[in-house]
């Protein structure tokens, strides 16, 4: 269904590439022009994406704004785009956060500005492509493609240990996704064996059951790729490095969008495609998520570096998202989705806040700060809002997400929900302690006296974030109503234990059975 009769998704995905070409034509000395063009392109991308929200039909779970063109037709691959209530907000979050992230770089990125903006635009295309692809192969292409710009962004504009951080980031994620690649191939051929059709169509694959023993391996391979991306404990070790070394915009995008690709992957692949395996794995994943929640919180408590603290808090927050998702209830999954959006906004904003003081003071150590409330009051107010939203105070977005996750989990797994609720307590401990030491007390560092408050550019990009903190916090229905149909459908899909009893687990392909026997 494409209610606009216009390839709007392709337009959104490829506007940044056109922007990148435009930027590459500008003389690299004209940094102002480069920044403006990039910003306008990203803003335009956001504006073009708004009709998705207004024309979205919330009464159906069907894919919308669909575009389908044959791509590698001999093998059943299509250029197939579309969104539903699950991907809608991730697309919007991407187009919304990117211009903000770009604005934050105007004074921070002074070296190789042109290259930076090109990389940022390419990254935007990669991320959007992941969220709108409905062909698994296309999905994989975008999934891997976005690694390249992110890798360059951390590696070129990052901190002192950037090379190590960027290598770790790339190799970890690449390692995870190659398993997804094998699983994807297996899925493709299995589908052909059982249904006599070569297809990478996600919608078809989602609705057709497979034998249990095969689901087991496929589930693990996909889960590994996504767990590394989320990142779930114990696959999280690349994240603090990447976050700490990345430039501010990189951290914002990493936390705000890239990590969501992992949770999105679980929602899109593991839950509907391997529903019966999902039920088998629920307990394991819930336990891992719980460990993530507490581990992230405990490690965050002892961090001397604000950015590292926020990075570890991501591990904890995404633990909630995973918990809600694998509660497998409508509220839980919606909470999980809300938590993804919230984390994008709140943690993204916190990284921006850290970036703002870092640009002025060139330190991120909590011990170097103190007393900012009296020195830079506006900054402190914003900081407080995002801190409160991060620890889920009612009235802010964080509360809605966390509450829904816990509520949803309580419906199906009471014990897990009760344990998880304590996680919020620890979040308050580390966030508020950090906030107290940075913003209150007396100024510890005489250098802080020269600190200046927000400039106009910073106002411009912080205000929209605050608006969303309260919008979601006070009236989340704007968002929830659009998700409802799709999430309900997803829950239905996971309820049907999708094992096809008529299918025998032992596969026999058309040819080469003999070889297989010989090899075993």
């Amino acid at each position, binding site marked *: 269904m494409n209610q606009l009769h216009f390839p709007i998704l392709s337009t959104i995905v490829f506007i940044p590439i056109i922007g990148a070409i435009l930027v590459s034509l500008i003389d690299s000395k004209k940094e102002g022009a480069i920044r403006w063009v990039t910003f306008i392109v990203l803003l335009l991308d956001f504006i073009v994406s708004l009709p998705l929200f207004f024309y979205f039909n919330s009464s159906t779970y069907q894919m919308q704004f669909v575009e389908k063109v044959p791509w590698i037709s001999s093998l059943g691959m299509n250029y197939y785009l579309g969104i539903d209530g699950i991907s809608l907000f991730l697309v919007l979050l991407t187009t919304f956060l990117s211009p903000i992230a770009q604005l934050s770089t105007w004074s921070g990125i002074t070296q190789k500005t042109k290259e930076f903006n090109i990389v940022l635009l390419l990254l935007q295309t990669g991320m959007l492509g992941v969220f709108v692809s409905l062909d698994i192969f296309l999905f994989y*292409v975008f999934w891997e493609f976005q690694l390249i710009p992110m*890798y360059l962004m951390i*590696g070129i504009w990052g901190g002192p240990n950037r090379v190590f951080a960027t290598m770790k980031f790339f*190799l970890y994620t690449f390692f995870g996704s190659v398993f997804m690649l094998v699983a994807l191939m297996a899925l493709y051929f299995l589908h052909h064996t059982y249904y006599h059709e070569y297809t990478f169509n996600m919608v078809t694959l989602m609705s057709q059951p497979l034998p249990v023993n095969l689901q087991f391996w496929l589930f693990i391979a996909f889960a590994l790729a996504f767990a590394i991306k989320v990142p779930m404990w114990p696959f999280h070790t690349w994240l603090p490095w990447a976050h700490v070394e990345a430039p501010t915009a990189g951290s914002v995008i990493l936390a705000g969008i890239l990590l969501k690709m992992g949770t999105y992957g679980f929602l899109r692949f593991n839950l509907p495609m391997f529903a019966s395996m999902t039920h088998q794995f629920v307990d394991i994943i819930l336990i891992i998520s719980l460990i993530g929640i507490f581990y992230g919180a405990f490690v965050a408590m002892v961090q001397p570096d604000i950015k590292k603290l926020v990075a570890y808090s991501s591990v904890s927050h995404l633990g909630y998202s995973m918990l809600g998702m694998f509660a497998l209830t409508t509220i839980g999954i919606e909470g999980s989705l809300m938590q993804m959006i919230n984390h994008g906004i709140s943690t993204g904003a916190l990284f921006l806040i850290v970036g703002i003081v870092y640009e002025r003071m060139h330190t991120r150590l909590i011990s170097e700060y103190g007393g900012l409330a009296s020195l830079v009051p506006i900054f402190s107010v914003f900081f407080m809002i995002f801190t409160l939203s991060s620890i889920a105070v009612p009235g802010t977005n964080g509360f809605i997400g966390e509450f829904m996750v816990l509520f949803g989990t309580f419906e199906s797994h009471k014990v897990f929900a009760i344990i998880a609720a304590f996680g919020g307590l620890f979040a308050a401990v580390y966030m508020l302690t950090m906030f107290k030491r940075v913003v209150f007390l007396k100024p510890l560092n005489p250098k802080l006296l020269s600190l200046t408050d927000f400039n106009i550019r910073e106002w411009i990009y912080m205000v929209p974030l605050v608006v969303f903190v309260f919008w979601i916090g006070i009236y989340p229905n704007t968002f929830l109503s659009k998700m409802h149909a799709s999430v309900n459908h997803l829950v239905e899909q996971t309820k049907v234990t999708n094992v096809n009893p008529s299918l025998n687990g032992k596969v026999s392909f058309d040819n080469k059975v003999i070889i297989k026997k010989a090899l075993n």
Partner: protein
Amino acid sequence: MNFLAYYSVNDLIAIAPQLILTIFGFIVTLVDLWLPKTEKSANAFIALMGFILAGIASVMMFDTGSTSAFVGMVITDNASLFIDLVIIIAGILAIAMSVNFVDREDINIGEYYSIILFSSVAMMFFASTYNLIVMFISVETLSIGMYILTGFLKNKSESIEAAMKYFILGSFASGFLVLGIGIMYGLFGSVDLNIISLDLAKAAAIYKALGILAFMLIFIAFGFKIAAFPFHAWTPDVYAGAPTPMSAFMSVAPKAAAILALMRLLVVGMHPIQIEWTQMLWIIAAATMTFGNTVALWQKDLKRLLGYSSISHAGYMLVGITAASSLGYGAVLFYLFGYVFMNLGAFSVAEYISKKGDCNTEIANLKGIAYKHPLIGVAMLIFMFSLAGVPPTVGFIGKYYLFSAAVQSHLYWLAIIGVINSAISAYFYLNVVVTMYMKGDAEGEFSVLNSGLLKTTILIGAVGTIIFGLFPSYILSIALHSIAF
């Protein structure tokens, strides 16, 4: 004896690409005699013309059906024409790389180009026959050309050493080959793979066992040609020592020919012992990939790195053959096609940073090239990501098909070993990118060989890598469709 009773004009038409290259090879040799020393670049032009005409001929002959010429000794089919094209593109790019290089290194003589042409002819014959003797003759002819080209930098000791190494090891391989062919002939009384296959199928157990032995001896020679573990040892030294354009050429063209010949040997000739050779190939493919990639991790020199990387790529291609399905064979052909662009491109960048004496190709010397020569940097970035198998490049699509063929044939573990290898290889390919982009700005000088032709080669490589990565459909369907055995 009536010559025409055996041979006709049709035979010559069937080998048109080879014939054109032979003629141009002779033209180069002759014209070279009259060319003054300053005008030697005309040789390159003639050689290019030869390759282009041969390319046109092979494209025109495509899809005209399988033709058997010279009483069945040469078979021209779509697969061989496809490989002809790969060899031709490699030849064109290698010659474009050579023009300024040979001037700088003072080896600008006509033989350089005529040997490229003649050895290309041999490669084409190698790829288009089911006859073991024709295979032997063509493999020897092409090898002699390669030995000479490897040692062409006569003032550089590494080059001479590489040629010696290549020659001695190559002779050993030939020895095994001819021994294998001899046993095969002794057993079945034929050197035609079709006949051998029929006889092997109904042979008694003892003869079958001997047949397997003969096959293994023949395989040693093929393994040597495609640099499969454990017959790979010559590769890094030879690639590092040979003139850079020839390393580039050698890493693709003879390999392409050998891979197709190997497929003919395995799929047609050794069909009755398919179970045995899939098992063997499984192990060799896994070992080749793993060895190439692990050792490449420690390389400091770009040419050596590409040498080890080419070993691992041979391993990837063997995965496609091990899959033993038409998807696998088609994937191998497609991979070779893509490999031309990315690998020649990467070697061109190695040449771009090289200095007189064909040295200075350490990876460290790439430092900062991305900022001094942004386009070269981007091109190299594309080549490295493509070799590592990251979308949207041709390297990714190629690997995807190879591994998916393995999955289709239920070789899950081989596919997993393959993808883990991709992840390992990402490390050293990315290391090159790190050096280019993340190790500070360059103080060093680049582009001693700042020729338009070299830059064009790099550009063609980069554009090809991306275009065939985004739109592989056409070439892929040709590759799949070319496999008729």
